[in-house]
């Protein structure tokens, strides 16, 4: 019960009768435009003109009023009801049991009168095409009847229909073709088209006062037992659950979507949507409330007040201040999207939703917060900025004013609770990933910077690397580098440098990792470095680092020189002369073999020099193994097999040159092959 839907504002603090009599009570009120009519217990109708000033002063009421005229009826009896027929400029006044028609301007009686009237009501939606038709439903004194009259522009009150009821009516309300009424001891509903009367429910004739009001098309609200408010439709059924008033009613009205019930102590505001009480406004001596064309007036015996609807923006604002966020959102849902195109979110609503999102965030209700942040398209920087040090170092971002929240930062918010701070960081990470992937935000620098920092901090190194390896990373380099350095993430640092074109610094970092000067377990070693060099595709750079790689690992190193045609990405092809490479690799026999095999087997180069050189390399290994007796018998045999297969397959080598070498090693089968080749 925290909605502030209405504000009670005084108009006439102390009403006094034109007669000067004391203890005169306000019996009834009516309003037409800026005119307010008060009917008194001493037979007066008093006309006021009421202005609502726009300049809101704190001193008093925004309303000013002035008495414009009055009408005094003969006897000292009360004016029981006043209704205005604004279009006809007439006032219908029930004085004692006579219904008078007055000119609204000068309050002079005109036309006919109806006698013996117990009560009456206006049907604001009569079933008739005449827009000037003013229809009233009249309950005669002590007769079981209801009579429909049409008040005409020529000052006549014409009887249009009469329905017979079991008992006289106490009070009634009408809409379209339906009249709902309280008889002496029960409520009934009357279908005028069919003339059918349906009993609703009984009540105690003496101890119970019935109240009823129209709430929707052909739907009424009735006061029932135990302070219940029962809804009823034309068919005599209830289509909404009942509501309950906590204080005995003295008057009842409806102002969409609120039901306003007045008691002697408070004004109770219930929502018709969920039938729950939303607001309680203290008001002593409440007697009378009415909705007069959208103006709500509420009276005690001697004061006239207005219930001013609080604009929905203010209601939502107040709810958010008190952190009644669910109610604020449900109110937002009910407000139409005024003045904005379909698909566009009202900026005011957007802001409220963002505020709500921060409230959920601060409660660690992160799923709801996420939906709201996304739905309300929050400026990502607002969220990033409550996490210390995640913003780029040179940021000029300032939080929006007035602020969306009162969070200084997450440490303050969660009082240093590690678990909650961690959850918040993971939440932000998830949020930023979505923002990064969607590419909708214009704050990619801030998003990517924070994303990198969070990955680094939370140890999500794989994600960190794939972020850095993606072409779309646009974080702030300086603050990211510093962040990574502080956390010993040298590999990521090198990736970032490389990504930002700072190649030499990146490579030198990796060199330091290879040499053991720096350590980062995320660095995958020399093969990775070789891949980087190849990807760079710059011969100069390649030659610069080739020794380093080959010294560490010949097998990985040779990959530098092998243009892998099958790789999916067309690496920038370097023009590497095979002779230069082969000469260079002389120092690295294993690498040289792999390179020559690549030239011959993969590239199909038929140059004699390479073929002979490969054979010589094979022979050298065998020779080395034989003389030094290193390696196993199996290795030796394997190498001999390799040589044999090559000698059989290739026709490009210089057989004669090889012959002596092979013979020296006592490889007679191979000697035979060579002889065979020489012979051809």
């Amino acid at each position, binding site marked *: 019960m925290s909605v502030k839907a209405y504000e009670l504002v005084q108009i006439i603090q102390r009403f006094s009768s034109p007669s000067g009599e004391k203890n005169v009570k306000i019996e009834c009120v009516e309003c037409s435009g800026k005119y307010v009519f008060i009917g008194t217990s001493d037979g007066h109708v008093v006309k006021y003109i009421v202005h609502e000033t726009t300049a809101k002063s704190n001193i008093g009421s925004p309303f000013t009023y002035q008495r414009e005229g009055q009408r005094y009826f003969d006897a000292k009896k009360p004016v029981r009801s006043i209704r205005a027929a604004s279009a006809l400029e007439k006032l219908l006044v029930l004085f004692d049991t006579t219904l008078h028609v007055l000119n609204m301007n000068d309050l002079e009686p005109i036309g006919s009168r109806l006698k013996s009237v117990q009560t009456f009501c206006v049907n604001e939606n009569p079933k008739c095409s005449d827009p000037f038709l003013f229809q009233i439903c009249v309950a005669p004194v002590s007769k079981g009847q209801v009579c429909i009259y049409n008040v005409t522009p020529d000052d006549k009150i014409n009887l249009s229909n009469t329905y017979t009821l079991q008992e006289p009516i106490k009070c009634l309300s009408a809409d379209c073709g339906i009249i709902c009424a309280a008889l002496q001891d029960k409520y009934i509903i009357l279908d005028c088209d069919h003339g059918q009367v349906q*009993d*609703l*429910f*009984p*009540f105690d004739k003496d101890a119970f006062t019935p109240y009823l009001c129209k709430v*929707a*098309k*052909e*739907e009424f609200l009735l006061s*029932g*037992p*135990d302070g*219940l408010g*029962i809804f*009823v*439709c*034309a*068919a*005599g*059924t*209830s*289509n*909404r*659950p*009942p509501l*309950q008033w906590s204080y005995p009613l003295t008057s009842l009205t409806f102002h*969409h*979507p609120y039901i306003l019930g007045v008691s002697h102590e408070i004004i109770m505001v219930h929502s*018709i*949507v969920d039938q729950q009480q939303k607001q309680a406004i203290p008001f002593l001596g409440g007697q009378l409330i009415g909705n007069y064309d959208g103006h709500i007036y509420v009276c005690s015996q001697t004061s006239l007040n207005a219930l001013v609807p609080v604009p929905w923006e203010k209601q939502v604002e107040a709810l958010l201040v008190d952190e009644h966020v669910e109610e604020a959102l449900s109110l937002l849902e009910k407000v139409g999207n005024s003045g904005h195109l379909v698909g566009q979110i009202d900026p005011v609503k957007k802001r409220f939703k963002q505020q709500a999102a921060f409230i959920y965030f601060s409660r660690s209700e992160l799923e709801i917060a996420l939906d709201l942040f996304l739905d309300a398209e929050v400026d990502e920087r607002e969220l990033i900025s409550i996490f210390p040090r995640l913003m780029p170092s040179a940021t000029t971002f300032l939080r929006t004013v007035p602020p969306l929240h009162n969070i200084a930062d997450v440490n303050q918010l969660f009082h240093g609770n590690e678990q909650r701070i961690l959850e918040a960081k993971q939440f932000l990470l998830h949020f930023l990933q979505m923002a990064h992937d969607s590419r909708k935000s214009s704050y990619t620098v801030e998003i990517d910077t924070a994303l990198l920092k969070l990955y680094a901090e939370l140890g999500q190194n794989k994600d960190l690397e794939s972020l850095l390896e993606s072409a779309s990373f646009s974080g702030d380099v300086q603050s990211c580098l510093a962040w990574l350095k502080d956390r010993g993430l040298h590999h990521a640092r090198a990736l970032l440098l490389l990504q930002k074109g700072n190649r030499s610094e990146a490579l030198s970092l990796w060199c330091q990792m290879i040499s053991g000067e720096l350590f980062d377990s995320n660095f995958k070693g020399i093969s990775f470095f070789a891949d980087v060099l190849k990807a760079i595709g710059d011969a100069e750079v390649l030659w610069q680092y080739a020794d380093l790689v080959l010294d560490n690992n010949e097998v990985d190193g040779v990959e530098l020189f092998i243009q892998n045609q099958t790789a999916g990405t067309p690496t920038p092809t370097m023009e590497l002369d095979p002779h230069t490479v082969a000469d260079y690799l002389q120092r690295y026999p294993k690498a040289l073999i792999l390179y020559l095999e690549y030239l011959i087997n993969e590239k199909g180069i038929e140059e004699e020099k390479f073929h002979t050189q490969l054979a010589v390399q094979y022979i050298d290994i065998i020779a080395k193994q034989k003389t030094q007796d290193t390696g196993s018998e199996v290795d030796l045999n394997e190498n001999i097999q390799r040589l044999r297969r090559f000698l059989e397959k290739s026709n490009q080598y210089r057989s004669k040159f090889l012959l002596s070498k092979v013979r020296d090693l006592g490889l007679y089968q191979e000697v035979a092959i060579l002889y065979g080749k020489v012979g051809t």
Partner: protein
Amino acid sequence: MANRGGAAQRPSPQTQGKICQFKLVLLGESAVGKSSLVLRFVKGQFHEYQESTIGAAFLTQTVCLEDTTVKFEIWDTAGQERYHSLAPMYYRGAQAAIIVYDITNMDSFGRAKVWVKELQRQASPNIVIALAGNKADLANSRAVECDEAQAYADENGLLFMETSAKTAKNVNEIFLAIAKKLPKNEQVSGSGSANQGRRLVESDTSAKTAGNCCK
């Protein structure tokens, strides 16, 4: 479905499942477990100390029966005697009613019989009435014999089950039995008033509830 891939067709009532809405009311003496049955059926929950209902409560639940989706609009009435006079507001126009008694309380069974009579006299003539002997989990303290209730139900053409909102025994079953017994096609009915409140909505049109302009 022969011309699959042709022009988009509106789903026809023959091939698409129907959605039927039915108004169902629960009646019975106070504290027999009406709200608990509804809570079990709608939310699958049970509260040992269910608060007593003030006036009436409204809930909905949907069940599927072969090709038909049955949406129950459930009116759970207050059992206390002072609210008795309000009951017609809620059972009027209902297509189905569950009259609940407590198997450990003979008086509540007597009260259930009075409700049956009232419905037979005043509710829609075609109303489907089910009798639920609730609190079947308390069979140790049984005061109403199952056979007796069954015989009474048979005599009066009522569905009958002993239920337990606490253990969920027969709760879904009794609602399903009612759903099966309710007429699911728009037959030409003899009198309008008897069928008032029933809305039959094809699934390709959004269900609009007349008179509920405030959502």
